[in-house]
């Protein structure tokens, strides 16, 4: 099987701004609660918030299991849009398309969490950089 080339992470413009929330090495439950609190007053609907919280929880769980510390979460609340990045010091999944193909979501085969995260967000972007690996999750539209 040929493996696709590792992708270089390209930050979005919002990531140059000060985040509204930063967590270092969060437990998944801590990440969920902090994100819910941040988005309490946003213009996103409940399903969007629930889905983003679910997706972030999956990605934080993966980072803690398979990545390398420190795991860093940053979030930007832009009213009708929320952006969350989760970074760790590791290299990320070997396959940049991890969690894309339906075959990978067979329960117990791994990759199910990332597959779910991709279904729950408008945008999932990931890649490597000098300090490790980052995945960006976006719900809503600017």
């Amino acid at each position: 099987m040929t493996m696709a080339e590792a992708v270089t992470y390209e930050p979005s413009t919002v990531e140059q701004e000060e985040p509204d929330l930063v967590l270092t090495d969060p437990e998944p439950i801590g990440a969920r609660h902090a994100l819910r609190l941040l988005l309490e007053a946003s213009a996103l609907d409940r399903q969007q918030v629930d889905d983003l919280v679910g997706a972030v929880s999956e990605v934080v769980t993966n980072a803690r299991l398979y990545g390398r510390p420190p795991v860093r979460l940053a979030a930007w609340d832009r009213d009708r849009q929320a952006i969350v990045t989760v970074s760790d010091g590791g290299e990320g999944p070997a396959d940049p398309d991890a969690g894309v193909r339906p075959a990978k979501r067979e329960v117990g085969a791994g990759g199910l969490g990332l597959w779910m995260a991709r279904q729950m967000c408008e945008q999932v972007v990931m890649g490597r950089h000098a300090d490790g690996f980052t995945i960006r999750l976006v719900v809503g539209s600017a």
Partner: protein
Amino acid sequence: MDTDDDGTYLWVSVDEDAKPGRLIVRGELDAASAVELADRIEAARAAGADIALDLADVTFMDSSGLRSLIEVQRRSESEGFEFCVAEASEAVRRVFDLTGTSSLLAP
């Protein structure tokens, strides 16, 4: 969205008014807390009970929670006991819908 002082955020109780294997689950079911649920199911199985889960008060479930349910279902087929999710919250249904696993839910 609450936790006990010791950090617990998943609670499992036995429905005293129902069959012994009917477990009422409350809180958030993720990779860490799924272990607690698995232990309680194990205990009910040790007593020979069929398993029915009431997940109506589960406010969050992730892929690990789903995986633990699928695992019990697989075991129920190989070991010959009954297993179903009797009640499910919106959060649980969302995961079932996304992953095409709604058959876990009793009709």
